């Protein structure tokens, strides 16, 4: 935080997500801090470590009774925590956008693909239908869809998973956001299309100088794809490092995760089982700020 706020696109400090339950308050995210420049930031962790919650909390899309608190979530110097719900709607999509896991469920089944993309555009840009259509076709082309005119008129059940995810990317990128949050964007896809979709996303992000938060549980993918990685455990950031140095990570949890992956170059008879140390839970969160 020693830097000027405009150096980073996003500064998050002391973010908490709490869910009141009958047996007390459950903390899904516990006081994490990180910053994001024009880079690709990976967030990894096991199921329930709070990585998706972090993504949604930035957009303030945690459903009641869940609560988000933070010292600040600065988007280009503007604290999102101070905005009203109405002002927040102008942020969502237009400045921060999010790609979700499964395109099968994240596209409205009864609306044509083209309508959904144009609507995403018209929500933020005050343009005519024809203009939105032209822009949508352009965007479909940008995500390497061969016959945009045809795909524009299809329903979501008529497209494949990989194509669906590219449509999602088109839909989320069309208002030209500054930050893209990708919440496991390739988990529901075949391995063969994963790289293709990632490449398309990567190109778009790089071309437009956006910041990308890439949420995943796939360590290899993250280390190959991102610039910097946050490793989360039980709602805290336990370690942060450069993605290409992930294999030199020191925290026992990260080591455990890495060791539980099979490796072709060093086969073992039995893979290690991750042993969780209760002490990790109580450690302080490491700041992911730069």
């Amino acid at each position, binding site marked *: 935080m020693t830097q000027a706020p405009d150096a980073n696109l996003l500064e998050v400090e002391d973010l908490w997500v709490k869910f009141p339950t009958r047996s007390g308050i459950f903390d899904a995210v516990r006081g994490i801090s990180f910053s994001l420049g024009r880079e690709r930031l990976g967030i990894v962790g096991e199921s329930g470590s709070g990585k998706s919650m972090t993504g949604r909390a930035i957009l303030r899309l945690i*459903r009641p009774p869940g609560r988000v608190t933070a010292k600040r979530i600065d988007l280009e110097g503007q604290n999102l925590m101070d905005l009203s719900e109405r002002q927040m*709607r102008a942020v*969502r*999509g237009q400045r921060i*956008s999010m790609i*979700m896991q499964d395109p099968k469920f*994240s596209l*409205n089944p009864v609306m044509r693909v083209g309508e959904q993309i144009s*609507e995403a555009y018209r929500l933020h840009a005050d343009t005519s239908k024809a203009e939105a259509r032209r822009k949508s076709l352009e965007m479909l082309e940008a995500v390497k869809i061969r016959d945009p005119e045809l795909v524009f008129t299809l329903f979501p059940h008529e497209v494949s998973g990989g194509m669906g995810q590219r449509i999602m990317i088109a839909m989320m990128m069309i208002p030209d956001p500054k930050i893209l949050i990708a919440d496991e964007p390739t988990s529901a896809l075949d391995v063969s299309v994963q790289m293709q979709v990632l490449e398309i996303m990567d190109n778009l992000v790089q071309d437009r100088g956006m910041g990308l938060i890439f949420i995943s549980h796939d360590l290899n993918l993250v280390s190959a794809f991102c610039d910097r990685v946050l490793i989360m455990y039980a709602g805290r950031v336990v370690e942060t490092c450069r993605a290409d140095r992930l294999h030199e990570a020191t925290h026992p949890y990260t080591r455990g995760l890495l060791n539980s992956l099979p490796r072709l170059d060093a086969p073992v008879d039995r893979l290690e089982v991750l042993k969780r140390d209760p002490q990790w839970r109580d450690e302080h969160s490491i700041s992911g700020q730069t």
Partner: protein
Amino acid sequence: MTIEPRPPEGLRNWLLSDTPTSRNHARMAALYQSWLSFRGNQMAMFGLGILVVLVLVAAFAPLLAPHDPFAQDLMARLKPPGTPGFVLGSDSLGRDILSRLIYGARITLYIVTLVAIVAPVVGLFVGTVAGYAGGWVDVVLMRITDIFLAFPRLVLALAFVAALGAGIENAVLAISLTAWPPYARIARAETLTMRNSDFIHAVRLQGAGPLRIIIRHIWPLCISSLVVRVTLDMAGIILAAAGLGFLGLGAQPPTPEWGAMISEGRRFILDHWWVATMPGLAIFTVSLAFNLLGDGLRDVLDPKEGSQ
């Protein structure tokens, strides 16, 4: 199925082709397939047939009716069915019952159509808003719905008409006011299953407001279950309209409304049975037709609830 083997003919073959040549071709073929499965249901076809006849009769009433429905002829009052000039007999003022039935079809269709437009829209709005907003909005709206459901339908409609004044428009309004709660229930149930789905989240994180989400994204998904419900409710609407007419709170005389015609004939029911019976048969036939059609439509539109 009632497809009789016929020599191959162009259009039919084109529609049943396994290898559609264009997107429109495939769509037409799919439509034709569901038409065929609907046609397999003979009772539904019977219902549809009656309704088509009803619509045609209503549309061409002036051409079909042998007499003016309002023309009185006190010399020819209470003539039995079959009397020359009065196929279905005449009523106490000497008006031709057949002509009045034919003109009455217009009124029946008018009421049914209006109610079928107003009630589902109101119910859809209340139900989706309650389901999507949740919290106290949901509680308030659904308790109001429960209150409306707690009254017998006709009694509540009677109260509304009594307050608003008798007449067809007010009857439509009163029936609509009593008919929307079931639609609100259905729409709310549908909304609850959808409001946490990923595509609603996706629209939300694009920055769409609640009203936009409800109207653009939730309504289209509720329509299909509402349409089925509407066709099944049509018969009830007809009966409610006839009931109001019978009690003198719907269409006012001399309008040839079927319920009001029964009410007029009630006084002579023992000596001149046809005056009350003919409109009664008309009501019976049309509501039966709507029920049969609704059942058939449900089988086609909603396969998981089909009887087969």
